[in-house]
């Protein structure tokens, strides 16, 4: 089964688990299984429309899925899939 690597800040929604495995033949189905198993993750990964949030990146091995076939990228049982949060920011209008 392919394995998803959960980034540290989202492990509070997976009972501290750093990995998740499920039978899946595409990135999309693996992410759907993850969200079903850990519903608290859903708003952090997906927009209300079901699309992946723009600041969440997904890699299969060392390849960004945007350079592959997006969420339709096929998986085999040996693949490691990483969820990576975009880390960015900077000075601007204060929100406090």
């Amino acid at each position: 089964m392919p394995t998803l690597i959960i980034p540290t800040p989202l492990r509070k929604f997976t009972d501290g688990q750093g990995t998740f495995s499920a039978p899946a033949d595409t990135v999309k189905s693996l992410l759907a299984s993850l969200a079903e198993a850990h519903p608290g993750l859903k708003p952090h990964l997906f927009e209300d429309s079901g699309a992946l949030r723009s600041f969440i990146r997904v890699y299969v091995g060392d390849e960004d899925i945007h350079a592959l076939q997006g969420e339709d990228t096929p998986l085999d049982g040996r693949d490691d899939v990483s969820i990576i949060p975009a880390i960015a920011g900077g000075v601007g209008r204060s929100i406090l």
Partner: protein
Amino acid sequence: MLQLDIQPDVLERMTSHAEAAFPNECCGFFYGAEEEGKRVITATTAVDNHKEGDQRRRFEISDVDYMKAERHAAKEGLTLLGVYHSHPLHPAIPSEHDLAVAMPFFSYLIVSVQPEGTAHVRSWQLDDSRTFQEEPLVTLPDAWRV
């Protein structure tokens, strides 16, 4: 919010990075462990600001550097607890840009830096309603408090 107990040499590395990068923004990760209601920060890694464009007002960490940080934490038996960055010529208060992509759980430490050096340091964490709450820095020198 948990208190942050940052080892002095680790804090020094973060503020020195902010001063060296001035007038640009710097960024990096920090690591440690949670214990008895506080986060003890024992390690940090500086990374390049990958933002294309005006690095005096923006920072961005590459996906590869993020993956390296997770691997570093796992290898060292530490927890990746947060991200630091600098606000050159601005206070260490989160901006709308900081909030837009902020993750839960992470501590976001900001170094306010002026031409003469570090002005002050503050740290923030999102609460469950995606509002930043300040985290007390228990080991911060008085000179760097607001």
